[in-house]
């Protein structure tokens, strides 16, 4: 067992859904990242995703692009992020997942990355530009090190791809709610419901939905459909707007609390 599986099992037993909160590591600084993780956990985030900033984030919209630029300007590197995770592990056992573009991992080397990530206390990794077809080397290294490789499905995925990804994703499966980039607007909730239902039937792992979930109402609606709700750009926007306020972690915590409250208020599907 591990922190990701434990968390989903505990929530299931409680009739609750997972709130997965994304921030960009190093935005505005890695010190603040540490404070933000702790504040978000205290405010009800069940799993935390840390973005690894990359110079060319093709899957991300303007909000996360700018966060990545801020993080890179503050000198953030993958190695430093792993040190931050190691430091966090003396304070919290909240599941931590990295979202990294493939070149960041490739530059470190897949085997070294997986070993160092697990040593630091990372539970899983999401690579938005690595479809299962290209995942072989990373999957092998991840299995050896005990790191979960989380794959994505999209509205455009064919039934054959749904079946393949459903079998290969570890920890949870990330369903991208819309054809678009992070920060776009969620419009077709019915399509999400239909696809998530099909994926849940095929998947061995919980299914979390991300992209386009910006408000407590969105979070509550998606919580009625999936096992987990991923909120990224909406939180990152708060970090960007209040980066220089002294109460940044509390501000962001407040927003996370409002998301979790809306999700908890809804009876589980």
């Amino acid at each position, binding site marked *: 067992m591990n922190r990701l599986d434990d968390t989903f099992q505990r929530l299931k037993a409680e009739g609750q859904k997972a709130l997965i909160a994304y921030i960009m590591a190093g935005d505005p600084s890695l010190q603040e990242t540490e404070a933000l993780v702790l504040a978000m956990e205290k405010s009800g985030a069940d799993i935390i995703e840390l973005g690894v900033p990359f110079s*060319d984030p*093709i899957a991300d919209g303007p909000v996360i692009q700018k966060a990545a630029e801020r993080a890179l300007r503050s000198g953030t590197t993958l190695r430093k992020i792993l040190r931050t995770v190691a430091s966090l592990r003396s304070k919290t056992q909240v599941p931590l997942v990295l979202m990294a573009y493939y070149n*960041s991992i490739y*530059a470190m080397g897949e085997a070294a990355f997986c070993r160092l990530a697990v040593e630091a206390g990372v539970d899983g990794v999401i690579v938005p530009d690595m479809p299962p077809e290209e995942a072989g080397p990373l999957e092998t290294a991840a299995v050896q090190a005990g790191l979960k490789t989380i794959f994505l499905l999209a509205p*455009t*995925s064919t039934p054959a*791809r749904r079946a393949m990804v459903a079998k290969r994703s570890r920890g949870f499966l990330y369903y*991208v709610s819309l054809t*678009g980039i992070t920060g776009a607007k969620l419009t077709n909730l019915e399509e999400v419901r239909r696809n998530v239902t099909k994926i849940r039937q095929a998947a061995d792992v919980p299914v979390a939905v991300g992209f386009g979930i910006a408000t407590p109402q969105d979070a509550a609606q998606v919580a009625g459909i999936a096992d987990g709700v991923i909120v990224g750009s909406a939180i990152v926007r708060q970090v960007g707007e209040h980066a220089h306020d002294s109460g940044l972690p509390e501000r962001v915590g407040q927003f996370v609390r409002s998301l979790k409250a809306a999700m908890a208020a809804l009876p589980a599907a």
Partner: protein
Amino acid sequence: MQQLPDHHGRFGAYGGRYVPETLMPAILELEQAYEKVRRDRAFQAEFADYLKRFVGRPTSLYYAERLTKRLGGAKIYLKREDLCHTGAHKINNSIGQVLLARRMKKQRVIAETGAGQHGVATATAAAMFGMACVVYMGTEDMERQSLNVFRMRLLGATVTGVEAGSRTLKDAINEAMRDWTTNVRTTNYILGSVLGPHPYPMMIRDFQSVIGREVRKQILTEEGTLPDYLVACVGGGSNSIGLFHAFLKDRHVKMVGVEAGGLGVESGKHAARFAGGRPGVLHGTMTYLLQDDDGQVNLTHSVSAGLDYAAVGPEHSFYHDAGRIQYTSVTDDEALAAFDLLARDEGIMPALESAHAVAEVVKLAPRLKKKQVIIVNLSGRGDKDVQQVARIKGVTL
């Protein structure tokens, strides 16, 4: 030599398909559609017909007599891709991909552009077939290639400036990929060079390989023998692979790819991927990439917008490692000198991209014997660069 790429889209260790899941079905659909037309005689005949009647192919192979005499060595031939409709080889690929998009019933096409030549070519093909066209271009490139921006708009395309990052080709591709991810069901992405995920490097190479096939026939007619050297500039690498491909099996034909040396490789301000890069993944493909220790993509510099890019086509990486193609670089200054030289000696203004290849010939030809033959790909004409050359020379127009 085996057939490359393999069915995973790999040229040895390079290539592949590193794209978000949202795009994977579209990439696979494109691959299937392309495999079909690749073997379809009607499609190939239609493509050849447009290349002949609309583009003006075959382009001539021109003996550059005064340049040859001045350099005093090998005989120099110019493959006149600058005579293609719209002024560069890019139109070969745009016509091919737009024809394919029509077969796939897509009504909208998007493209990225650096120097503007691929944007103009795609806007042209889209206009001819009545398709909606959006071109992404870094704002830095829009400034140095403002004439091409206006040309695209005259052709009915929407040109969208990209402010992110270095505001050049790399950032334009990022934004085009984001558009494609969002509009994948209605839109084909017309990529401009042998870059990106499979099947683009293969498909674009195929569409451009008409250049080398023509050259082979032409030089056999002119000289009765194959050339000793082929020289072409390498940004993404489509004009060079287009010239080289028909000669890869001719082991005695030497090939030189010329990258942008910018202010000099030692300055760090350049786009010489083989001199300064190492394998990595950018824009869906594994290839030589200018990057820092942490895998962040480096900013590049070149006087030529079309060569100003941090990665190179994966097939080039394969032939680099295999030693089949030799890669070198020339600086901004050397390229500008070659621009002047060709204008004055031959009455031809090359694109600044192509001027890099000419600059390499200036170094290479004197070292060779007079009976030896160099063919240089004059991939585009320099009209688009006149304003920038004036600016560099301090001339107000």
